[in-house]
């Protein structure tokens, strides 16, 4: 146990610190998010992530938002296990035809008002996969979409900036 505590103590707080206002500073962007979330969502924004056909690249980067560097929960943003608990759906694509119905069901299971964010180039426009017998392409071809975060995959920074932009627009 002493070793565990020693290691925790030695690593210290690595969460990125506040530097002058910049759009590429994670904490600054996060703080902007937090102000809106405090005002509009009573301090907490619940996200349900849905993989509707992604290659798993986007999922890796969404995961990274929870590591100690980004620690997205400090801005009141957290990932929930059920669409019934969600304010925002983060959907990665392209929407495969085999996931089409599951995506619609999940969308319908999310209480109103709900926001949908299409993640990654594939979610935005179908990416390299496009529309075919197997893919329905962009998320917006299947459910209404409120915002897009481009990138293949988008970095954690891109993701947070995208969330902020969406919250500001809403």
């Amino acid at each position, binding site marked *: 146990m002493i*070793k565990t505590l020693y290691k925790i103590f030695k690593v210290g707080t690595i969460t990125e610190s506040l530097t002058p206002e910049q759009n590429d500073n994670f904490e600054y962007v996060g703080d902007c998010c937090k102000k809106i979330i405090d005002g509009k969502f009573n301090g907490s924004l619940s996200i349900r992530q849905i993989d509707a056909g*992604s290659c798993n690249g986007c999922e890796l980067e969404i995961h990274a938002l929870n590591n100690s560097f980004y620690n997205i929960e400090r801005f009141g943003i957290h990932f929930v296990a059920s669409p019934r608990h969600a304010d925002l759906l983060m959907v990665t694509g392209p929407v*495969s035809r085999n*996931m089409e119905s*599951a995506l619609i069901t999940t969308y319908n299971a999310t209480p109103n008002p709900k926001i949908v964010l299409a993640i990654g180039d594939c979610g935005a426009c179908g990416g390299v996969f496009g529309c075919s017998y*197997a893919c329905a392409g962009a998320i917006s071809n299947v459910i209404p979409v409120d915002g897009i975060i481009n990138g293949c995959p988008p970095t954690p920074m891109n993701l947070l900036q995208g969330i902020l932009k969406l919250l500001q627009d809403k």
Partner: protein
Amino acid sequence: MTDNNKIHIQFLKLLNAETGFGVDYSLPKLNVISILNLPSKFWQTATSISAKLAYRFVGIWAQDLNETIELNIMLELQGVFLLLRTSIDIYTPEIASVTPYFPAANRLERHTHDMFGVIFTNHPDERRWTRHMAWHKDQFPLRKNFIFNLNSVNTTLPDNVYPFTKVHGEGVYEIPVGPVHAGIIEPGHFRFSVAGENIIHLEERLGYLHKGVEKLAEGCDIKQLIKISGRVSGDSTVAYTWATCNALENASNLKISDRALHIRAIMCERERIANHIGDFASICNDVAYTFGYYQLMRLKELWLRLNKQIFGHRLMMDCIQPGGVCVDLSTQHCQDMQEQITKFRCELAELYPIFETNYGFNNRLQTTGVLSYEQALSLGVLGYVGRASGCKFDLRHDACYPPYSTLQPINIPVFQTGDVLARLRVRAQEILVSFDLIEQLINTLPTGCILEQWINHKKIIEGIGLIEGWRGEILVFVRVNDNGLIERYFPRDPSWFSWPALEMLIHDNIVPDFPVCNKSINGSYSAVDL
């Protein structure tokens, strides 16, 4: 007769004795792999003999050659590969199933049926696999006459009629899970049959991520193919682009520089380490060991940040091209990687003993999700899943390819217990082995150019690529037509074999241990749904 064929001589002798076919022992070659062309009536005999001689099943795939469908089976014995080939008529596409001899072929044959309409007689499971409701059972997407851009305006129906195996008995109940799961993970459906707390049967239903990768690749040029290959499975983007380039380079006899090979291997090892650390962290998370989770996720993030700095992309996507790589390493880059490895060694030297001595953590992992050696062998399980159950095979060791063949022999960690802990230990050890490999690769980094020009051959060429990705051996087959466009692209992920292993090892475990068992396997959904 070349040396490579020597190993197959017993197989060929037995085949000649049983069939009277009279195979010439000097087999033709595809790249360095011997090919045996067979009439389809000997297909079953050939596979049953190879199974008796303990060949490993590597993969089965088909291609539509207009009037005929060509079937390929890849086998391996002592690190030497053998390709069996046969053709069947496209109007009566029937052939004997090899699943009775190689259980590993089960889902790949069902996939081949759904995509080509090949009927595998005597297949123990005649249900569809990749096909859900997106196309009709009489349509076969990988036939040449199938239209790729079949845009349907109607919403595809959910596959509610798939006939799952029913388990009967007093008190047995079903838990259906997915395709949308509770975490940030890929979609798939799991049907648990449970008595009390113990899982007595698990059935997987995948295919939700079917994006038509194989069909999409048809007609693409080389550049587009590389882009697609990097997105077969985003977590293995380096391994897939390398394997695909490897297949293309083998097909066209394009020799690439040693420097490019070294850089490819450095990227591949970096990808291995990133994923091993990340999954190690997730396993900690699945048994509520948050200390381990946050420490390891911290290390993974640092690792990815250096990727971004050196290769311009956190996951190193699109850095490998046919003919070499498009990112060169400076002395500063090498120094940065070296320093990071030194730092990580110290970090892990502190962390590993903490994990090893944490009773609660080890207690959850020991004897959980046991895959026996016999089970692993029969399913042909690869990578860390195999190595945790005593199946040692690693391409970098057993069928070594450059640049690994220029390095010191690789130390492959192997465990026998086959539980979650063993799989974790294999990965913990592999991280350290990969540190050594990267150091060796940096220290022996040759000078020279990094990208050779890709030449269009103006004739039909075929090639096979084999690369040890972090999940295990990745096989890629490509066929390029005389215009330099792709005719057939087939990537086979090691997850084809580890998914069935999950169904076996979960038996008699409690439902709350499923996430950790699943994570310890971490099969790719995207790379098997294709």
